[in-house]
């Protein structure tokens, strides 16, 4: 298994949540102090750089109009990481391409970063959380169709090397696509896509991309991975190796269990500091009709995951404790869901301080990741 260290680069120095209606979309940016923010950026880069030094891979994402994440442009962060890291695979997970006006620009930027890093880039595409819709002014209807068309256009831009090609699609028009540079990796960087719904999993499986899932615990993760495996086999492919699967969890490693739990308590900020105004939680078209009806009846959304640490550990959305405890938690989850080849470690959130973050990164890199690396990433799936 490969391990990727990931941080959302939050700006946590906010008034009490009772003083604002939404940490996303409407929170005024006067609350962002550039002097504090600039230091935070450098701190987070130091942490990623250290993750590389201790043998971890790194992962970046992007969000918009939110204090929970200071990276509205994945490409900008990636380009720095491509220069300051040496060995790590650099994963962007991901680019919300259904919300992007210009997929060709995405293809260009990622090709640049792939060259900067001499082929260490992995590119993820995501549908994005519902709150992104307002921040991007993106029509929430027909996102899946737009995402597929953008995906097809980006891949064609990466893999066409004989001059301009024409693209007059339903959602994107480009009569002369001819990107410079082309990607360093041939035919293109590995592609990841987050998936949850059966139709999305079908598509990702058909494309043979890496399927990633965030904080889906035991049941949902197994459902997603099983569905992908079954779809591949059903279409006449060999059962996919574990390298096609990725799971993201909040993870904190301490020298002892109690130190690990204490760090993880601070990571819980990610789940708890997500006060979002109701109108941004379920834009029309984002969820299925039955889900929308349930939400109108007061159900909580899939993104409201706040619960106590012990419960989160039990659900498999947090891994925490000493190196041995964390390894065993991951191993238990790995076995229960049928195995996966990529662990995405959400290792910093909220007020988890720099030294605390570095301490966990060191233990992850030196004591946990080497054991996880022993888990074969290309093993045939074990039937459930």
């Amino acid at each position, binding site marked *: 298994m490969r391990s990727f260290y990931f941080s959302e680069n939050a700006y946590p120095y906010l008034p009490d949540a009772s003083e604002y209606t939404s940490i996303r979309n409407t929170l005024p940016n006067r609350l962002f102090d550039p002097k504090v923010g600039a230091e935070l950026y450098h701190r987070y880069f130091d942490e990623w750089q250290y993750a590389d030094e201790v043998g971890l891979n790194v992962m970046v994402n992007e969000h918009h109009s939110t204090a929970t994440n200071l990276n509205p442009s994945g490409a900008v962060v990636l380009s720095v990481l491509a220069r300051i890291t040496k060995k790590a695979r650099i994963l962007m997970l991901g680019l919300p391409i259904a919300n992007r006006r210009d997929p060709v620009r995405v293809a260009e930027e990622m090709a640049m970063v792939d060259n900067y890093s001499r082929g260490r880039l992995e590119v993820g595409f995501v549908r994005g959380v519902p709150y992104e819709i307002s921040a991007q002014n993106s029509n929430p*209807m027909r996102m899946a169709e737009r995402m597929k068309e953008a995906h097809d256009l980006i891949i064609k831009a990466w893999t066409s090397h004989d001059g301009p090609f024409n693209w007059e699609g339903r959602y994107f028009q480009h009569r002369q696509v001819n990107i410079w540079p082309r990607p360093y990796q041939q035919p293109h960087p590995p592609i990841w896509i987050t998936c949850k719904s059966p139709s999305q999993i079908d598509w990702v499986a058909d494309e043979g991309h890496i399927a990633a899932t965030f904080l889906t615990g035991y049941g949902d993760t197994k459902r997603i991975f099983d569905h992908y495996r079954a779809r591949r086999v059903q279409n006449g492919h060999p059962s996919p190796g574990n390298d096609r699967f990725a799971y993201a969890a909040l993870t904190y490693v301490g020298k002892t269990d109690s130190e690990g739990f204490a760090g993880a308590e601070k990571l819980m900020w990610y789940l708890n500091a997500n006060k979002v105004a109701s*109108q*941004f939680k379920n*834009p*029309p078209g984002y969820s299925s009709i039955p889900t929308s009806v349930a939400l109108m009846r007061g159900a909580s959304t899939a993104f409201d995951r706040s619960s106590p640490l012990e419960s989160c550990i039990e659900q498999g959305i947090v891994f925490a404790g000493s190196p041995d405890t964390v390894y065993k938690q991951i191993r238990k989850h790995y076995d229960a869901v049928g195995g996966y080849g990529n662990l995405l470690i959400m290792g910093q959130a909220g007020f988890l301080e720099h030294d605390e973050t570095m301490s966990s990164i060191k233990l992850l890199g030196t004591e946990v990741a080497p054991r996880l690396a022993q888990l074969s990433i290309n093993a045939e799936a074990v039937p459930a």
Partner: protein
Amino acid sequence: MTTADNATAALVPVGGTTIELFDQGSGPTILLLHGAGGLKAGAPFLRALSAKARVVAPSHPGFGKSPLPDWISSIDDLAYLYLDLLEQLDLHDVTLVGMSMGGWTAAEIAIKNSERLARLVLADPVGIKPSGREVRDIPDIWALDDAELAKLMQHDPANGPNYATMSDEDLSVLARNREAAALYLWEPYMHNPQLLRRLHRIKKPTLFIRGASDGLVSAAYVRAYSEAISGSRIVTIERAGHSPANEQPEKFVETVLGFMGE
């Protein structure tokens, strides 16, 4: 002929798709185009209108039980669909009544071809962009919570939908209507940048109706609309918000029928 009390809608093929179509009453013909809230067969204003006229009222693709084919995505598409419907049903001397986004659709129909129309009623219509780029002519309904929206939409916020008392089926329709509304109205937000300069093509008698408490479509907005259609005038209905037909059905029906009798 059916009455609105036991109104059932038929699924009717038109323009390459199928629409749920209410066709009730007899007499002069009204083609009624609903707003983003969709069409309720049992609505009192429909019953009252169809007692005096033939009311032909489609659910726009994606609303109610009308399917949403993947090639339909704009108000322009709806306008052509209903031009096809007017031909298919061979309707003449039609009073075209459009409410909110249905008003926008009605205007788009009339600028294209008014041959089968006798007159237009545009109730709290959206569709134009009279002010500058930094003025939100119409509040962003997708950036407001339910309570804020109810305050803008209704004269009495209690007249808004109450999820707690609605059946799953009704909530499903409501959720579906929200989706279709987003598809048609998201961007450019609730308007066609070209519509204002095309409205001069409308030569049929045109009446604007506006709920006095409408928090979405302002009096100034309706004035700008009206100024672009020669000879049009505006009637304001008191104690009504964005949907006078639902909040003041009697007054609304009286206004429409009165205009038809002129």
